[in-house]
């Protein structure tokens, strides 16, 4: 029972915080709410007996990536995302686009509702035993799997990130530096 309460508490925080992220006019508040959402997600991982994933979530997303976001927002120092004149005249603001967007949002909600209704029939079937989860939480086992079974995906992701980094450096270089 405490597990269930904890789950709904953390899930509630995660969902409400995520929803509030897109409702903020101040990007600083959006970042703080996103961090709160990550924190709640990490709590959910702990209730699933995956402390390593929970800590990785905090270190990588809340600790590193969001600090970078914060740095950029502070550097640009944009306290208010105000709708400027050029912003209101933006082609994406025309009613046609707005209606298309509303249609897509409607589709997304329908899809989510459909997925949730399908999932509700799966709730009763037990999730593969908790013993497996405990074995998974072992960092040694995780590392072993990562460097054997998922070797290709792991290395491909590393190369992808390296490519993105080199691209960013090339783009950031000024012309006269060459």
């Amino acid at each position: 029972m405490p597990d269930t309460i904890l789950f709904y508490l953390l899930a509630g925080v995660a969902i409400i915080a995520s929803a509030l992220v897109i409702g903020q006019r101040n990007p600083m508040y959006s970042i703080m709410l996103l961090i709160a959402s990550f924190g709640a997600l990490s709590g959910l991982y702990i209730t699933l007996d995956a402390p390593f994933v929970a800590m990785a979530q905090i270190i990588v997303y809340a600790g590193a990536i969001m600090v970078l976001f914060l740095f950029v927002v502070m550097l640009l120092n944009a306290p208010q995302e105000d709708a400027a004149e050029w912003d209101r005249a933006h082609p994406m603001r025309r009613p046609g686009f707005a209606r298309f967007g509303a249609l897509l949002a409607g589709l997304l909600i329908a899809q989510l509702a459909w997925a949730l209704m399908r999932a509700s029939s799966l709730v009763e079937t037990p999730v593969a035993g908790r013993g497996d989860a405990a074995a998974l939480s072992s960092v040694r086992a995780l590392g072993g799997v990562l460097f054997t079974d998922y070797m290709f995906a792991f290395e491909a992701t590393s190369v992808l990130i390296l490519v993105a980094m080199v691209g960013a450096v090339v783009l950031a270089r000024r012309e006269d530096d060459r």
Partner: protein
Amino acid sequence: MGLATLWASFDPYLRPSVIGLMIFIVFNALIMASAILVLAERKIMGFMQQRYGPYLVGPHGMLQPIADILKLLFKEELRPKGADRWLFTLAPVISVVAAFTAFATVPFGAETTFFGLLDEPIKLGVSDVNVGVLVVFAVTSMGVYGIVLAGWSSNSKYSLMGGLRASAQMISYELAYATALASVVMLAGSLSLREVVDAQSGYWLGFIPRWYLFLQPVGFIIYVIAGVAETNRAPFDFPEAEQELVAGYNTEYSSVRFALFPQAEYINMVTMSAVATDLYLGGWHGPFLPPAYGWIWFLLKVGLILFAYIWVRWTVPRYRYDQLMQFGWKWLFPAAVLNLIATAALILYFNA
């Protein structure tokens, strides 16, 4: 009569749990430590500059921290007109909560009954989780939000510069810090701080303690340098560089809100020293004392590192900002990566 009888006299349901007691002890010890460190810092600074330091309040100025705290409590609490109301209040809270929480997974002693006061021996440490090293790292990295938000929400140029510097510095030095940690974790084969400490018990050749300091001298130096940078202490105190930024991120703060920042800094110093002791200096293992009194060794080692912290602050001048970045990215981080690769190779060589 002892604590044991008192303990037993409680109704089982009302009996304070071991973990509750431990939280109480650690919480108060950290508060006391930050007060003592303030005094120690000023006394040692005075000694190094050939003067007395605080000397008027109490014998030899020993009650100076109490006077400081009272003064801060009775100051007027100011908030600049242009400051962001919520984040300005939240920032010091984040700082100090992260500082206290980080100590939760740091073990500081073997099983002990405290000179026979307790019936059953208890393990010293609030909680022992199997990813303790990562928890300390994750929670301390949350502490930077307090500083960055304080800098931004004050709506002041100097504060903003301090916050920007804090975030850039944190990103640069966290990498080297984590890489140095990874080398120790590989040697011990565990992410649990208690298991890392227990892997360092015993002696080589009968007299050299099996501390990872001797296996990881480069890692230890990197850890300590990155640790000083992470706690924003001189020579890496850029976020509050007083000659350049008035007082940096906490320029606009006063009273208790201000007091929370230095308190968080001193508690972070204690945590950093305690983790260094656990990872590199063999934690509570040491000669002469039985294992049950190992926490005395632990306190001595932590005190030694804290003294070195203060010593460095009053000896080494502050870097220039570009030197900080150059040093972090071009020297410290590559050195940490090379150390990691060398450690991995040697482990494979000797275990195969």
